[in-house]
């Protein structure tokens, strides 16, 4: 069983004008497709890993054989991250904004949605080079306490990757800050891209991510 490129839940132009059509097209059909091709290639001779599914592969990235470790981390990470990313975005008219248990948790852990956004934006802007910014649900093993946190990761690392990342947990929201995610429209102006991105956040999907965590 090979991994395959998931379809976008919307048209390539659905996130206009915040994320442009050309970027969505290249990002999905080229960049994400390449991660899919490469993870399949890397796992060709390792059916036991292929059988785990993409989420578990990410969780167990530290225990992958040396010969494929880098390829799996970069491409397994890339495939999961982008699959996640397409789903937590939507046409602005399709979302009702932050609500329910997720909104309550954000208010509890950050004070307000705006305060959370400020921290998220700062993390996204400060990630040097390529990487991602995340809103993560972190669970304390000992106390059972659940807390939302902001973090960023380099390259295609994500919070699923235990023993590899600083903050490990369940991603609720994630933002790609690799230059390919924004350069055609925003060039060097990453903060502008980050601000604009909030317009296309699929809060219902984020809420689902939170409720299932």
């Amino acid at each position, binding site marked *: 069983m090979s991994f395959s490129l998931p379809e976008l839940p919307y048209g390539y132009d659905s996130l206009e004008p915040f994320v442009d059509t050309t970027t969505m097209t290249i990002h999905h059909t080229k960049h994400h497709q390449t991660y899919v091709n490469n993870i399949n290639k890397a796992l060709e001779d390792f059916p036991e890993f292929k059988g785990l599914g993409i989420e578990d592969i990410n969780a167990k990235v530290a225990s992958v054989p040396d010969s494929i470790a880098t390829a799996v981390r970069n491409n397994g990470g890339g495939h999961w991250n982008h699959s996640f990313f397409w789903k937590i975005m939507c046409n602005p008219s399709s979302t009702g904004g932050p609500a329910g248990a997720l909104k309550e948790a954000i208010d509890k852990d950050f004070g307000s949605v705006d305060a959370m956004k400020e921290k998220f934006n700062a993390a996204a802007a400060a990630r040097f080079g390529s990487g991602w910014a995340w809103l993560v649900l972190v669970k304390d093993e000992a106390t059972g306490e659940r807390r939302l946190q902001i973090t960023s990761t*380099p390259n295609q690392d994500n919070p699923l990757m235990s023993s590899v990342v600083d903050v490990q947990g369940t991603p609720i929201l994630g933002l790609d800050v690799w230059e*390919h995610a924004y350069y055609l429209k925003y060039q060097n102006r990453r903060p502008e891209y980050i601000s604009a991105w909030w317009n296309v956040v699929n809060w219902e999907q984020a809420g689902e991510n939170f409720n299932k965590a």
Partner: protein
Amino acid sequence: MARRSSLSTIKRMVGVLPEQTSVIAGSSSSTLHGSRGKATLPDLPYDYSALNPVIIPEIMELHHKKHHQTYVTNLNSFLEQLAEAEHAGDVNKMIALQSAIKFNGGGHLNHSMFWEMLCPPGSSEPPQGKLLDMIERDFGSLDTMISKFNGKTAAVQGSGWGWLGYNTESDKLVVATTANQDPLQATTGLIPLLGIDVWEHAYYLQYKNVRPDYLKEIWKVVNWNNVADRLKNASS
């Protein structure tokens, strides 16, 4: 009580002090930094359109005026903070500033070299003399070196640089890559002779996701004379 200036040690590591700039052939210390150790954006040795059609003018302008300028501005700001922290004896703060200085200092160093390592397609003359001898000795041929360079550089994950470096200990040419803006000499000891930026901002507007196409074309604008000068300075 005499205090060793760790600030000057750090400055030397990122090559802001004059001793380091002597390795950078063709750029006087004043183009890399102005008076009192402030970094400044060097002018390009050519127009923004000079590397067309290998690198389009829009990329050159953004790359120089925005990206490189930002490294310069940020480096100066962090060096100021570092000086204040050193003055206050706040070692913790000095350490906390290290990664920002590496990012922005590396970015400034790397791009300052980059502009000089490139030249208009018409002015790019193939390597000759000692440089060519060493390339052929250490790689077999120029084509083989380029093939190795492109293979390793295309494979850089995320943002980084590909380098032709000189190993002073073994007197050998090496192909190497660095992540983000890590400066080659400070992090590996290799002397940078040729560096190619493979951050997406260096090529995306023109080549999109096809980094290998950019790497194929870039050799048409390599300033081999500058590469030879750097080798001369490094091996003398």
